[in-house]
Every structure is written in structure tokens, then in C-alpha cells.
């Protein structure tokens, strides 16, 4: 029981909005019914914090209790930082049979071998996900609980989602992860976003997809907006067709919320009017970034309303088809010949 426990508690309570404090504490389950009753949640946040700190001192709460509180809050509210997706590669024969306890033990022992001071916490969430909280230390320092790394791994799938992992700790994490899941390698899936469920859905193809068909789809009937007999649309077929193509490219229904898509171009500069640039040997490097609160939705709207030409260029449609939002485009790969597009923010 030291100052670090108290400051961590203070820090966590500061992150939780006042209206969510009561429910979070209830969920935590470390407070007795009387203790919960004694706290007046209508008071300002700092008084509540003070009461909790007093309880912490009386009850001699350990660091473990406090990290539990943090973890249960993060599991319920995961959309607070950038999540990066990683993909495990080359499974070994027994990769599919790894179950929770085995994974837990393996991951712990592998990571503890690599780093002496480390604090690990794992919890299985309801939807098959294993949540891992890692507070990193090193040879001389105790684990730093102020900046923990969170990782989410779905057992029996090759996907791991990580937030706030520094480049220093990345190799250690990757090694422990590959070994304990019985894979041979891990790679960056080139997908990141603030919304964990969205990037999970995108990577695991858990959103409503539309597939190209030659038969007229029920879409046309659903989107009949012209109601009055005296209103007539001249180019009616186009709109339905465009919408269908857009849905094929980006998926139908509600789309996962993605915040950005980045294209790194390493292609030759092509412009007939600008000789000096076109004749240069080296490739012209630039980065095109599309940003929006819900990027896929805006791109679909762009395509369906005719702002972007249909059929949608593979550069844009591969965001949802391949589940990536970071692309490097070079001259050799197919699709590189298409011109870089201007960013359209919606």
C-alpha cells in the first residue's frame, strides 16, 4: 500500500466520467454493499475520489484491486485510444487447439522470461476475447502502471488488437504472443482505428457484405423514394445501380466506424504538362490521407451519390475488402497506375 496505488486510483477515477462511476464500481465488485451505500454519487467527483481514497487506505487495497478496476472500465469503454491490428502467421499444427488456461500460462511465462519487472493481468470477456493488461518495467524499474498496454486476442483466430504499445516493447510482446499462440510470426495488419469493435468487425468480416449478382436485387424496391405520381425521375436506373455498386465495394447496412485511410504513394510522377517532374528517375513520394468520423460510410455515400465514379476504384474498395487502412502503392503492383485521388472529407 503506497503512494503509487493511491495515485493510480486517483488517475483512474479521473478518467471515468462522473455518471459512469457508480456503475463501474458496482461492476468491479470489490466494494461491499455498505461501502457503496455510503458513497454519495451526486457529489462532485473530487469528493467521491476522496472517499474512495480513504476506503483504499482503510481496506489496504492492493495494486491488483486497482488494476482490476481499470481493466473492467477499459473493457466496457475500449474506444479511448488508437487500436492497432496485428495478424499472426504460419500456424503450427496445434495452433487451433490452444485454449484459455494454456494460453494464459504460456504468455505469462514467456513474457516473464523476457522482462523481469512486469505486471500482467488477463481476463476473458464474454465474446471469446482475452483481454491482456501489461504494465511494463525493465531491469531497474518497477512496472509502470500509469501507461499500461492493452491487448485483445480472440482465441483460435490469428488476430490481435493492441493499444499504446511502444516500439521498445513491441518485439517482446510479439515474441510472447507468437510463442504462446503456437504461430510462427506476427505482422502488422495495416489497420488502425479508434473504435475497437469496428476494426475487429472489419478484419474478421463481421459486417454486412453485399456480393455482386447479375440478378436485380431487392435494393431497388427498398429505395423507392418517389412517392407521388406526378413526380418522375429521369435517371432512375442510375441511382439504384450506383448504390448497388457502392454497397458491393463497401458493404451494406451499417458499416464499421473507421477514422482514416492512408495511402503512401511511391510511384513515378505522371503529368504531361510537367516535363521536369515526369522525367525524374526517382519515384515521387507522397501520402494521401482520407479522414472522417465514419470513413466507410462517407465513401459509400460519395460513390452512391455520384461524387466518386463507379465502379469504385480498387484502391478505395480494398479498405473493406482486404480489411486494411494503410496502403503502400508502388509502380509494380496492379492498380498502381490509377491516379491519386483528391481527399474528400465528409
Amino acid at each position, binding site marked *: 500500500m503506497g503512494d503509487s496505488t493511491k495515485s493510480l486510483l486517483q488517475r483512474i477515477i479521473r478518467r471515468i466520467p462522473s455518471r459512469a462511476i457508480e456503475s463501474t464500481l458496482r461492476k468491479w465488485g470489490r466494494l461491499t454493499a455498505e461501502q457503496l451505500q455510503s458513497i454519495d454519487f451526486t457529489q462532485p467527483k473530487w469528493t467521491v475520489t476522496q472517499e474512495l481514497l480513504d476506503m483504499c487506505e482503510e481496506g489496504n487495497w492492493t495494486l491488483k484491486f486497482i488494476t482490476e478496476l481499470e481493466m473492467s472500465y477499459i473493457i466496457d469503454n475500449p474506444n479511448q485510444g488508437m487500436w492497432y491490428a496485428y495478424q499472426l502467421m504460419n500456424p503450427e499444427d496445434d495452433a487451433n487447439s490452444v485454449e484459455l488456461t494454456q494460453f494464459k500460462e504460456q504468455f505469462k511465462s514467456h513474457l516473464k522470461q523476457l522482462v523481469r519487472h512486469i505486471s500482467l493481468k488477463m481476463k476473458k470477456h464474454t465474446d471469446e476475447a482475452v483481454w491482456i493488461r501489461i504494465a511494463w518495467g525493465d531491469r531497474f524499474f518497477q512496472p509502470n502502471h500509469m501507461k499500461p498496454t492493452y491487448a485483445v486476442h480472440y482465441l483460435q483466430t490469428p488476430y490481435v488488437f493492441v493499444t499504446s504499445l511502444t516500439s521498445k516493447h513491441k518485439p517482446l510482446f510479439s515474441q510472447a504472443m507468437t510463442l504462446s499462440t503456437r504461430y510462427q510470426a506476427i505482422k502488422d495488419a495495416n489497420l488502425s482505428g479508434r473504435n475497437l469493435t469496428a476494426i475487429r468487425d472489419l478484419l474478421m468480416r463481421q459486417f454486412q457484405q453485399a456480393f455482386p449478382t447479375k440478378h436485380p436485387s431487392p435494393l431497388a424496391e427498398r429505395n423507392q423514394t418517389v412517392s*407521388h405520381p406526378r413526380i418522375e425521375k*429521369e435517371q432512375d436506373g*442510375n441511382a439504384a445501380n450506383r448504390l448497388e455498386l457502392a454497397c458491393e465495394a463497401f458493404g451494406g447496412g451499417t458499416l464499421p466506424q473507421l477514422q482514416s485511410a492512408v495511402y503512401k504513394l511511391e510511384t513515378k510522377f505522371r503529368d504531361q504538362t510537367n516535363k521536369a517532374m515526369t522525367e525524374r528517375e526517382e519515384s515521387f513520394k507522397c501520402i494521401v490521407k482520407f479522414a472522417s468520423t465514419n470513413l466507410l460510410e462517407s465513401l459509400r455515400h460519395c460513390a452512391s451519390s455520384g*461524387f466518386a465514379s463507379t465502379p469504385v476504384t480498387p484502391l478505395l474498395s480494398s479498405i473493406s475488402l482486404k480489411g486494411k487502412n494503410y496502403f503502400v502503392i508502388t509502380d509494380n503492383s496492379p492498380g498502381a497506375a490509377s491516379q491519386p485521388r483528391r481527399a474528400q472529407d465528409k
Partner: protein
Amino acid sequence: MSLLKPFSKLPGINSANILLVEFEETFQQSLADALVEETAVTVNVRLAKSLPLPKENEENRPRIDLVVFIINLTTELSFQSAEASLKCLDSGFFLGKVCFMVTNARNASVPTERLDSVRKLAASLHCPLLFAEDQTPAGVTNAAERLLTILKVTAGLVPMTTALYLSNLTRCTVPPDIDQPTFD
């Protein structure tokens, strides 16, 4: 490319036909709903994204009395599309049967040059330029009323006046100092 002609068909009895051209296809829908509410005359509304209109509808398309180009100032494409569509209109339409309607003109993010270019376009074609509010229902009904007034004249339903006469009074003019920099 087939030109849309104003006088190639016979008019219907007590009816007026309006063609709304809008690239975004959003405001035209609500505007059309407001226009057909009119009871004194039979108003037929045709909606289009851009001109030329498809050939298949040529047969059952009535005589168009008024062509309205709706231009959303927040996007450049909207203006460019309207500009390209103008080429598909017969010159007879420009004797008072075309008008421009601008939306989102109050939006602060719109560059002023864009409105200036729309005004220049309307002035060069001797067409009236209307401003409309597309976000509120009141704005939509207001815009529909103003269009109906013009439409009734261009359809020949108002005695003692013609489209050409009206357009002489209502056409857009460009102030001479439009290209001058302002110092405010």
C-alpha cells in the same frame, strides 16, 4: 447529344411541367414534394441529376416549361455539373425558361468566388438567380412558392404576361465591381 427543346410538344390543359436538375439529388426531392402540393394547376415534376436526359423517356416526357438548376455552393462539382448540363438545352429555353437556384449560400465555409461565378453564369445567360434554404421545411415551401410563381408564367397560365417579359424583370445582373477586391 439530344437537345431538350421547349416548343417541340403541345402543352397540356391547365398543367405546368418543371424539370429540377440537381447533382446531389437531395434537395430536389423535398422541393418536388412541396411543388406537387399546388392545387390550382397540375404541376408535373421531373427530376434529373444532369442533362442530357435519357432517350427512353422522350416519348412520355411532357413539354418542359421551366428548367431549374439547383446548385449547392458547398461543392465545386455541383456547379461544374450544372455548367456542363447547360450545353444540352436548346437556346429557346433561355428566353425565360431557365432559372438557377442556389443553396447553402450562407454557409461560412463556402468561398465567395464560387457564388460570384454562379452569378456571372446566370447573368451571362440572362436567367434569374434564386436563393433557397434547404435545411428547414419553411425554407423549402418558400422556395417552392417562388418557383411556382415563375412556373405559372412560363407555362402561359398567367394572362397578360410571358416568360420573356418576366425574365427581363427578374434576370440576374452582375454588379460592375464584382471583380474588385473588397477592403473590409
